């Protein structure tokens, strides 16, 4: 049994309108997502804006009410809990938000922010509370002498450390990290990534790491799932996905990320997708990527490809999975996708 098991999670947002404020339409934000997070590991969830990755995180935490599906944490279905049971379960499941400026109460001192979960869950009070907060601040690399300051007196990186200290207060089993470093400058980003890795090692924590930065995800994750328009299109161990992606979307996504090295950039072949992500109110039938895919056939429109392992060592939801080198040739022949081959470009 895995620490976290998400099964067939669906989240639709109703769009209301008209004179009676009736439901007119539904945004299908998450359409049947299943994955596991193992204890002590990091599962990266990547995709572009609107793919549903943050909605998955928030639905797991019950910040959104799931339309259907189940979320088992240590065998307990979180979506079926209520009242006291839910409060108790939440101690095991914490979140770190993207924006360290918006997610901390500006009127509370750092000591109060970090200590609040301990008070609410009646885990500590008085001198013990003081000691626990000091320990937490120490662990995230903040000077305990600053505990009586307010969030605005800290830099972005330090604020993210405060958020991490608060998330650690109840000694959770899993922390959902929703774009935890994307608001930070590069040099500060590395500090926070290292801190998260250190804490994981020390405490045996699991992370569900939501991010759009594929290089950051490669660096921190053990397993990664790629989402497109509400579904997982490819999932597997980090090296499988980054070195042997077989879904055309994963391939295009990876090849769109520029590497900080001009030599590599000059020699790399890239797939450049055309068009935009379709409207999630009316997603394409069958495979949702087919409208932008150079390999799409009638089968792709009629049948949703299942997320299964076709014998390559990881699961991919595509009727025509193939390695990147082959995909690049096929794409070049189709002419529907720009294959940027730096050698072939004249002036």
């Amino acid at each position: 049994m895995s620490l976290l098991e998400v099964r067939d999670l669906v989240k639709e947002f109703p769009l209301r309108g008209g004179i009676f404020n009736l439901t007119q339409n539904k945004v299908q934000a998450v359409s049947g997502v299943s994955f596991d997070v193992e204890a002590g590991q990091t599962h990266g969830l990547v995709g572009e804006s609107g793919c549903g990755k943050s909605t998955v995180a928030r639905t797991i935490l019950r910040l959104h009410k799931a339309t259907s599906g189940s979320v088992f944490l240590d065998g307990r279905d979180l979506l079926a809990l209520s009242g006291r049971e839910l409060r108790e379960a939440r101690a095991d499941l914490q979140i770190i938000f993207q924006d360290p400026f918006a997610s901390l109460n500006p009127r509370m001192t750092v000591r109060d922010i970090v200590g609040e979960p301990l008070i609410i869950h009646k885990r500590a009070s008085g001198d013990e509370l003081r000691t626990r907060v000091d320990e937490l601040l120490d662990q995230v690399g903040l000077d305990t002498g600053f505990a009586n300051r307010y969030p605005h007196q800290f830099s972005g990186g330090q604020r993210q450390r405060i958020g991490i200290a608060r998330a650690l207060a109840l000694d959770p089993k899993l922390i959902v990290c929703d774009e935890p470093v994307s608001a930070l400058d590069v040099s500060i980003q590395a500090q926070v990534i290292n801190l998260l890795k250190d804490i994981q090692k020390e405490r045996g924590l699991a992370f569900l790491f939501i991010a759009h930065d594929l290089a950051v995800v490669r660096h921190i994750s053990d397993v990664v799932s790629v989402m497109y328009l509400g579904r997982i299109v490819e999932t597997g161990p980090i090296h499988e996905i980054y070195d042997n992606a077989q879904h055309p979307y994963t391939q295009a996504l990876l090849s769109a990320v520029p590497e900080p090295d001009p030599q590599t950039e000059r020699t790399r072949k890239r797939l450049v997708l055309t068009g935009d992500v379709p409207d999630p109110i009316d997603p394409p039938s069958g495979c949702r990527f087919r409208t932008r895919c150079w390999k799409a056939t009638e089968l792709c429109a009629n049948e949703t490809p299942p997320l299964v392992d076709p014998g390559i060592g990881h699961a991919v939801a595509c009727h025509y999975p193939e390695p990147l080198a082959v995909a690049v040739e096929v794409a070049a022949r189709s002419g529907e996708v720009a294959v940027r081959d730096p050698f072939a470009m004249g002036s």
Partner: protein
Amino acid sequence: MNPRFDPDLLLMEVNGLTVEFDTPDGTVHAVTDVSYRLHRGETLAILGESGSGKSVSVQAIMGLVPSPPGRIAAGSVMFQGLDLVSASRTEVNKLLGSEIAMIFQDPLSSLNPVFPVGWQIGEALRVKDGLSRADARARAVDLMDRVHIPNARKRVRDYPHEFSGGMRQRAMIAMALAQDPKVLIADEPTTALDVTVQAQIMDLLDEIQRESKMGLILITHDLGVVASVADSVLVMYGGRIIERASADDFYAKPAHPYSQGLLASVPRLLSDMGRLQPIDGAPPSLIHLPPGCSFGPRCPHVAQECLTDRPHLVEVPTRPGLAACKRMGKF
């Protein structure tokens, strides 16, 4: 070397540019003594983190520094024989938008929500070139075609909210291109966009530059974007240029400890990095800059002289390019 880059044809020369802002807490030294040259067909990247002064340095060129509280305290920007800093507003306005154009990070807040996109693309042509409405619209359709907005003839009447983020940035680029500028300044043009859309926009800028041979100043914090398009790199820290080199030299042998730290702290997509090497500490306050090297307090190679004497840009001993570090060759 990039065949479109013509190092003999100087387009713009920035000399000693210094921009300050007066605030209740003191004077913010946003940009100090920034000098560089831009050539025909060159892509010059100004690389820096937030608060490094990279955006203000180009806002000063475009006359976009709000005054007060801001002021250009020193320096010149020479373009076609005219100093944009000291010239009269009328003279400068003739050049801005037509000879020098700019695109911004957030296309939604740069477009007017109550006018059709095509109307806004054609605006400069109507106002500055005196084109009729019909002619301006026809030109707008051509420009939208050029930036690959599908169905340009129909979409010319659409409003900004009907465009996706990538399409809005294309519209902004079309607007910037309306009068065939010689210099395009792009301030974080893809930061708000998804990575697949970013790739499309960078390809588009590259394609346009091939055709027009314009000079492109790209302001960004993204080391990957710089590596994929730039000919030359300026690195800014604490309002000053701390390193200047060709992109190849910069990435192969970063000379300044800050540049080295920056490159060691970014995770890579195509390889495993082991543990990241972050830069300790945080960037300096631009009000209370340290007297010596502004990177000194965070520098792993810092010496006593660094904390008291400000380093100037000097030749890097091991390769072409300049860096502002007193300890080069000693670590």
